[in-house]
């Protein structure tokens, strides 16, 4: 059995890893999983790119929470990305906290955690790290790269940075840039973390994290992943385990209780400094920026086929952002499919049961 393949893998690639922002990492560790087998001519590899707070456990149980893989609705037996047909790769992003090099990693030069000495990274640095992983795995060309949200940003970046290595791109509920509103929400989260006295300028001990700040960051962000319609339907003004309001500041409302739970459980599985770095990478993301704001020019050299999906109630990365990408791809002459799917569940719709999305992706992959 080739030790490079399977669940819960990790590889440390020695040597400098230069970053878009000018920094250099002395070495690069990537934690990843693979599912299925790479075929003899290496034509069946699919890279799944994860969103901000997710990880490499796309289709296997999470080691900390025990929950099933985060995209088992798409990846698994009988699903559009079936490991019986495809060789599936999912890696923890650069800057993450599930084993890939990030602010919690130890700097090999002094044995201390990087913390805030970690250089600021970008989406294209994440993609560069994934490209190194593919080299290590012996994967030259990807049959497809698939991602939602920040994963979609990576998927688009793949097509731009490595045009010859990507046949198909599936970018779901995503954007080619972070909007002022996207940046604004992230800034609220970062300030919540940095305002927590436990943050200590990033030098907190692993067992004493700025939990309150990180929880608030998660609560604010979580609202952006849902929709008003979805929240109203799920919670309305219903009260939590009581018949009347308490005239105090307990979690009277179900929605408050839900958000507090989301915040607290997030702290169990995510690192505060990682959250700072990854949100920053997303804020810096703008594919058109190196081309004078002309997105079509950013896509000028792409060789992939594209499939974009948006959801009606997603106000974090609304349909207009997907349409902007579609327009630019059309102008660049790239083959693109796009569909806006009906859903009341907001941005998170792509992670939920979405049979139409599966149908579109399945058709796109098998064609």
């Amino acid at each position, binding site marked *: 059995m080739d030790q490079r393949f399977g669940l819960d893998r990790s590889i440390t690639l020695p040597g400098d890893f230069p970053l878009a922002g000018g920094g250099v990492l002395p070495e690069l560790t990537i934690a990843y999983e693979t599912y299925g087998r790479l075929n003899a001519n290496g034509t069946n590899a699919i890279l799944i790119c994860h969103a901000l707070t997710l990880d490499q456990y796309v289709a296997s149980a999470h080691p900390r929470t025990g929950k099933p893989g985060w995209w088992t609705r798409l990846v698994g037996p009988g699903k559009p990305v079936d490991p019986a047909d495809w060789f599936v790769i999912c890696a923890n992003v650069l800057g993450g906290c599930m084993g890939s090099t990030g602010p919690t990693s130890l700097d090999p030069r002094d044995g201390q955690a990087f913390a805030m000495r970690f250089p600021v990274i970008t989406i294209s640095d994440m993609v560069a790290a994934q490209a190194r992983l593919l080299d290590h795995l012996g994967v030259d060309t990807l049959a497809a790269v698939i991602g939602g949200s920040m994963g979609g940003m990576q998927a688009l970046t793949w097509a731009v940075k490595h045009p010859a290595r990507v046949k198909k791109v599936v970018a779901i509920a995503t954007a080619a840039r972070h909007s002022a509103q996207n940046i604004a929400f992230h800034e609220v989260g970062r300030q919540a973390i940095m305002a927590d006295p436990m943050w200590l300028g990033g030098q907190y001990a692993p067992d004493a994290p700025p939990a309150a700040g990180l929880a608030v960051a998660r609560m604010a962000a979580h609202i952006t992943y849902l929709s008003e319609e979805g929240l109203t339907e799920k919670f309305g003004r219903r009260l939590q385990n009581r018949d009347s309001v308490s005239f105090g500041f307990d979690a009277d409302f179900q929605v408050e209780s839900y958000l507090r739970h989301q915040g607290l459980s997030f702290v169990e599985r995510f690192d505060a400094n990682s959250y700072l770095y990854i949100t920053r990478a997303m804020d810096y993301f703008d594919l058109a920026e190196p081309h004078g704001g002309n997105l079509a020019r950013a896509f000028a050299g792409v060789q992939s086929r594209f499939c974009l999906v948006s959801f009606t109630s997603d106000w974090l990365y609304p349909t207009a952002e997907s349409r902007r990408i579609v327009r630019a791809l*059309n102008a660049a002459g790239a083959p693109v499919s*796009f*569909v806006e*799917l009906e859903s009341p569940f907001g941005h998170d719709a792509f992670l939920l049961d979405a049979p139409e999305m599966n149908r579109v992706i399945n*058709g*796109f992959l098998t064609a």
Partner: protein
Amino acid sequence: MTPLPLRPDLAAVAAAVPDGARVLDIGCGDGQLLAWLRDTKGVEGRGIELDAEDVASAVGRGLAVVQGDADTDLADYPDAAFDVVILSNALQAMQRPAAVLAQLVRIGRHAIVSFPNFGHWRVRLSLTLGGRMPVTRSLPVSWHETPNIHFCTISDFEALAAEMGLTVERRVGLAKGRQVAIWPNLTADTGVFVLRR
């Protein structure tokens, strides 16, 4: 897999598409025509369709189809991006048919346009004798429910093409799917035109 036979009006459109052409089908529905053209003529096809479910079906057939509105989205395509741009049975549903027509011949070196002929004798009869808006095989929906807001006759279309300075490369009148021999504006239920700038 043998492709299914096409609807007669689509077959007339398909007949005008050269092998291996780059084709944009506007209002492509579930992609029946594009899939047929790909499988039998080796065309490189793209589509635009308003209905999300139809887009999903078309993408499921392996086609590159974008959910969008021909009235607004055609401006995004570069000049002469396609050999052939098809608008089959959709001109009459456009908000601004003349503007769409202008986009067709800009984006494509050739445009193929098919539309229900409002000059067909059944239509005339329905209006003249019945005094009612026609409900026929090619126009099956009542006036208040139809998405068709800009009807024209074959003669009207020819006049518009002339006014816009377009060259009509070919014109075919169809009745029940068969090419008519005489008086197409009276005898054809469908007009199929091949145009260029």
